[in-house]
């Protein structure tokens, strides 16, 4: 009976084929570590945010007079409203934690390298969408930090030449952050997650074309691949369990630990908080913004600090495959970069009062961009040094194979040109 139904469906829709292609026969490297859990985890956190968000929207009111009160209504009167709200607020932080870890893994193992450039770029697009969604969501509680954070960030668009002021007005729907801003941010905050779902599907199509990278950075022979299901479904489920334990500790025991006290005061355009600070996941970028003395320069630097990841496939010139596994200098660079990012995060958290902090921020900013801009030279020098020192046979074979291919290509081209002339 079940077989008949499946046959009926398969004649009309490739259900079995799809399941085979993306689950039961989808080849996955068997040497993946737990660092490869964070992709599917991000998908689950996205679902969690969607579901809690939809239920919150049933009780939330996007109106400057009502929104602060409606949050308190959710916290006090709605059945398990407090749970929905704390899950959603903690979920935002969890989402960034998972995505940042996912990105750090990609950097460490060089997973962004050929043939996975498009996979990496779709991921970059997802990061931008996620940041926009989180930023707009943060306005909705209409607390002091919501209001002033949105004011400061929308103000940055003034840096755009000629049309800056008009764009700021367009974003806000008014000359200052107010009721139109709140309503449009709510509309977009509800819309964007579905755009993200679409972008995730594109990300997955790209992934299923090039398949997962693996810790060695080498393309593995077929015998070293195993089907995604059941091996990675169960591994991802176990990882999800571990994640949910940590997530629940935050949701149930320290739900306000990542919230700003000032956001428990309703937005007041007449009173500026002592220290306007963004959510933790924006701190490194915020520190870069503040480290550049001019507004335009700061905005450009901040934008670049997010977008620059997309250039990595071009910046990494090494012929040695993968990331840190066979490349000690690249590994050291990775740790320097992570440290610099955390230092920037700490700097972004501090009020911009002391000169020492400002200088640390500027040095870290230079090092942040240096990590990218010096990569072409460092990766080439590292390659020469490592080849001289000797690499594992399998890596050398791959490099030689690639060199031979390029040589062959060149000869063909020369021949063709020779014939022509």
């Amino acid at each position, binding site marked *: 009976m079940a077989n008949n139904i499946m046959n009926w469906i398969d004649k009309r829709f490739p259900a079995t084929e799809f399941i085979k292609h993306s689950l039961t026969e989808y080849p996955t490297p068997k040497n993946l570590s737990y660092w490869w859990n964070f992709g599917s985890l991000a998908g689950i956190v996205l679902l969690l945010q969607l579901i809690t968000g939809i239920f919150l929207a049933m009780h939330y009111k996007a109106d400057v007079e009502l929104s602060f009160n409606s949050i*308190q209504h959710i916290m006090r009167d709605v059945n398990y409203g407090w749970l929905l709200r704390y899950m959603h607020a903690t979920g935002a932080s969890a989402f960034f934690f998972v995505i940042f870890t996912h990105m750090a893994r990609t950097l460490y193992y060089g997973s962004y390298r050929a043939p996975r450039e498009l996979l990496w770029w779709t991921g970059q697009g997802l990061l931008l969408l996620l940041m926009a969604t989180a930023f707009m969501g943060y306005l909705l509680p209409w607390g002091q930090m919501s209001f002033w954070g949105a004011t400061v960030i929308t103000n940055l668009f003034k840096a755009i030449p000629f049309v800056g002021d008009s764009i700021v007005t367009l974003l806000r729907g008014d000359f200052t952050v107010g009721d139109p801003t709140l309503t449009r941010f709510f509309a977009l905050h509800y819309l964007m997650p579905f755009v993200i779902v679409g972008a995730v599907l594109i990300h997955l199509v790209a992934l299923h074309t090039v398949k997962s990278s693996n810790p060695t950075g080498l393309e593995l022979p077929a015998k070293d691949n195993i089907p995604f299901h059941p091996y990675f479904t*169960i591994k991802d*489920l176990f990882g999800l369990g571990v994640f949910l*334990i940590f997530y*629940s500790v935050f949701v*149930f025991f320290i739900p*306000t630990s990542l919230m700003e*006290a*000032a956001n428990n005061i309703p937005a007041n355009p007449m009173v500026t908080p002592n220290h306007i600070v963004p959510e933790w996941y924006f701190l490194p970028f915020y520190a870069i913004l503040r480290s550049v003395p001019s507004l335009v320069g700061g905005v450009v630097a901040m934008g670049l600090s997010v977008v620059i990841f997309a250039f990595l496939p071009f910046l990494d010139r090494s012929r040695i495959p993968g990331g840190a596994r066979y490349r000690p200098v690249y590994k050291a660079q990775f740790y320097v970069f992570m440290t610099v990012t955390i230092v920037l995060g700490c700097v972004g*958290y501090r009020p911009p009062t002391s000169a020492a902090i400002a200088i640390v921020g500027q040095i870290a900013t230079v090092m942040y961009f240096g990590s990218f801009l010096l990569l072409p030279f460092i990766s080439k020098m590292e390659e020469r040094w490592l080849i001289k020192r000797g690499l594992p046979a399998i890596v050398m074979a791959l490099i030689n194979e690639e060199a031979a291919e390029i040589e062959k290509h060149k000869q063909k081209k020369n021949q063709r040109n020779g014939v022509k002339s």
Partner: protein
Amino acid sequence: MKVFLKIALLCSLSAAAWGAEENFEQANVETTLPAIKRGADEVMGNCHACHTLKYIKYRDLVALGISQAKVDGWRGDEPMDAPLKAQMSEADAMAAFNKVPPDLSLMSQARDGGVNYLYSYLIGYFNKPDGTLSNHIFAETKMPDMLGMSNATDEVQKTAIKAKARDIVSFLNWTTDPHAAERIQLGKYVIAYLIVITTLLYLVKRQIWARIKYK
């Protein structure tokens, strides 16, 4: 990678510690029902005249376990579902203080330092040499020293005032998040369940992966 994670964790923890700029007295806030009830008495007696608690209704106080007779005394003609409005009108408050006293429902989380800020503020009153009143935590405050810390002369009095302040903070900690006790209780079950199921998932994972032969 593990070493790095440890360093990162330490960094972020020290960053959090950095954030607390002022040293507040530790409130060691009590979450027991008697403490919250004592705090309710203090708040209704000392604070409610000027401050609203607009997210708390009289019915919530009865639901908490305060006797109906007592709540009836507090609410006067107000209905059970009315929020706790201040006895003083906003206009009168403006006339007296040139400022409307802030709502207290969320006060235990509305200042950096949270409950410790509140506690330190309540016991932070002192008389300056010129005889005027000030506060260690919030020098520009317009609120009078309701608990009388500035006039306390001996340790016995001070201890009594600190106990009152602690009870007030206990009550306001409850008003900020009335579901906190329920949340923590539920959280214990959720985490216990997750630990069990995650352990089972781990065992299944090991069993499934045992089929794979490594070279």
